[in-house]
């Protein structure tokens, strides 16, 4: 018998990474919603507490017929959704060889760079493109075009949704039931804008 028969082919692994306070938790809630709506088993694992104060944050999303562990481990992610360039680079080694990176082309200097203790790396996206399939989007710029910078994370959801196997209508239903009632329309518009990229 093969004891190491472990990577379940049906399980999809997604990571959402960013800087604490950027709104990665809302994105994971929308993802969790669409996955559940589509009848899969799902586990999501997120970070609360101190790291949410401007630190590097990561959310794991795993779905399939039957999901055991709640985390994605190195070399296993199918999709890496990064809200910030440096965070894309930090977690890129979690991707499978044919993994996809969706990265928001934004730079937020960590305190180590602000104080001069470290340098913010140059050409992150260009270098990642040499190794992985990379879709880069300036979501903050897109969101400002819509008149509300805060919905940049829903634009990123739209970009990711285009590359996943769920119905567009279902996505919109989940967004409607997840975001605050007053922001439904602007979030739907943001999703559409991202979906068109």
């Amino acid at each position: 018998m093969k004891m190491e028969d472990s990577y379940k082919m049906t399980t999809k692994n997604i990571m959402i990474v960013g800087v604490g306070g950027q709104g990665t938790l809302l994105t994971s809630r929308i993802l969790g919603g669409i996955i559940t709506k589509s009848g899969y088993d799902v586990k999501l694992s997120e970070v609360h507490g101190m790291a949410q104060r401007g630190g590097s944050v990561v959310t794991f999303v795993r779905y399939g017929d039957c999901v055991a562990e709640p985390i994605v481990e190195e070399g296993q992610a199918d999709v890496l959704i990064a809200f910030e360039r440096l965070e894309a680079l930090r977690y890129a080694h979690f991707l499978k060889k044919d993994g996809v990176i969706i990265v928001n082309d934004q730079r937020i200097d960590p305190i180590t760079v602000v104080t001069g203790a470290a340098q913010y790396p140059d050409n992150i996206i260009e270098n990642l493109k040499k190794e992985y399939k990379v879709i880069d989007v300036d979501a903050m710029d897109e969101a400002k075009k819509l008149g509300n910078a805060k919905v940049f994370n829903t634009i990123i959801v739209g970009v990711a949704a285009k590359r996943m196997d769920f119905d567009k209508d279902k996505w919109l239903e989940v967004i409607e039931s997840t975001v605050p009632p007053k922001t439904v329309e602007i979030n739907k518009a943001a999703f559409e804008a991202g979906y068109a990229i």
Partner: protein
Amino acid sequence: MSETKIMLGNEAIARGAYEAGVKVSSAYPGTPSTEISENIVKYPEIYAEWAPNEKVAMEVAIGASISGVRAMASMKMVGVNVASDPLYTVSYIGANGGLVLAAADDPGLYSSQNEQDSRCVARVAQVPVLEPSDSQEAKDFTKLAFEYSEKYDTPVMIRTTTRLAHSQGPVTLEERQEIPDKPYERNAAKHVMMPANAKGRHVHVENRLKQMAEDACGFEINKAVYKDTSVGFITSGIPYTYVAEAMPNASVLKLGLVHPLPRKLIEEFASKVDKLYIFEELEPLIEEQVKSWGIECTGKELFTLQGEYSANMIRERVLGMKLEAAAPAQVPARPPILCPGCPHRSTFSVLKKLGIHGAGDIGCYTLGAVAPLNVIDTTVCMGASISTLHGMEKAKGREYIKNWVALIGDSTFLHTGVNSLMNMVYNQSTGTVLILDNSTTGMTGHQDHAATGKMLNGKETKAVSLYHLCKAIGVEHVYEVDAFDVDELETVVKREVARDEVSVIIVCAPCALLKSQATRAKCIAIPEKCKKCGICLVPGCPALTKNEDGTVKIDDTMCNGCGLCMKRCKFDAIERVE
């Protein structure tokens, strides 16, 4: 058809309490346990509150249990230390209405000051421990905990870790059981723990654990599944999911009850597998007991005492697999920092200028210990800032602490800091205490407390006055200063540290993330006036960076217009616009 909902582990524990017919819940916030109470309060059938600390929360639950209803206290693992005094003794008293303590451990130290294992506390307190491995079990085991509590006349701990508390998974919802209140009868031999009575109850405690250990061999939540018997794992909780992921064909004894252990079941399992591994995060609680029974097994020789486990740990250390993954890139670290507009940054900028050392405490402001602020020298536990400063003075004399202050948040001060301040007054300290009053429990995500004027359910209530509290315990010099009035703060701090009496400075300004602080004001940089001196950057606000030419740049999506940078600029190169 019953409804299925995706729930956080903590949300599922709250749901379990609801379905179990719980009537009273008390807690103090602490990552990763906070969301239990934040979800329990959504059920109007349950009275739910924030207590000032975990000892109070535990005692509230004990009172409710003695009176005959099902009750729960929830807290993070270091809170269990605070609650351990009542816990050790209620173990003797047992339960009338079911009594459950939800304790959340933090292997990997995501948001804690140590990596302790609450199972060990429960073992010493002789309290049974249930450990779920996903959200569904979190709900089911919580309900079971109340049943066991009443059946065995014992408080029961339900133990989670961060990875379960903050993971979401599907949960099937059921109806709430309406449990009739148990009758209350005066029973001093059971409820009054004085020596003669406690002697008798200690016998009950020993018998109850022995009985439960025997019964546990037949509990459904302790489940042996035999597949390939060349390898067997004894495991529980989240580590079980890593075993299931990495070696789905191995034989597994999954323990739902991790204390007391089902010895006969374990002996039987061990005899049927060729090689036995014990896979448990943190302390070797199961392993040491299994080894003490003369059973050969491998645990901490192979797996760590620190941090979280993973499926890859099994693949590498048990299967000897070489994992295929790219090497991590060498990138600058991104540690957590104080938010843009945080009043603590303003306070720290003043203390840093004055060269003052801080005896620190537990909260967001612990981040004042790291660059670029570097003000806080010590952090131990909730409330320790004030007492450690007092200890320094008593060791080295008054002069030694002339450039020291104690730094403690409003919620932390009410938690256990107030006792330490009493000690300062009583024992003639001359130290200065800064209460960093941001009107909330910030780090854990904005919970109300006894001085905010609001309860867990959002209703208004009396607010404890920090000023009058300090006055009432005998501090004569109490001053309130706006955290962003840096000149005034500097003057008051200089004056008070020099004073040969104990003093308190309440540094007020609400947390920048509170909804009430939503503001349209922004600071903007005027590059033509900027002399590139960098003085605005010193306090380390994340909204401020440099342009390529060295002038300062302010990110308008992050800035909340607190004005600290503007006040520091000597060239009017930063303006505030509404």
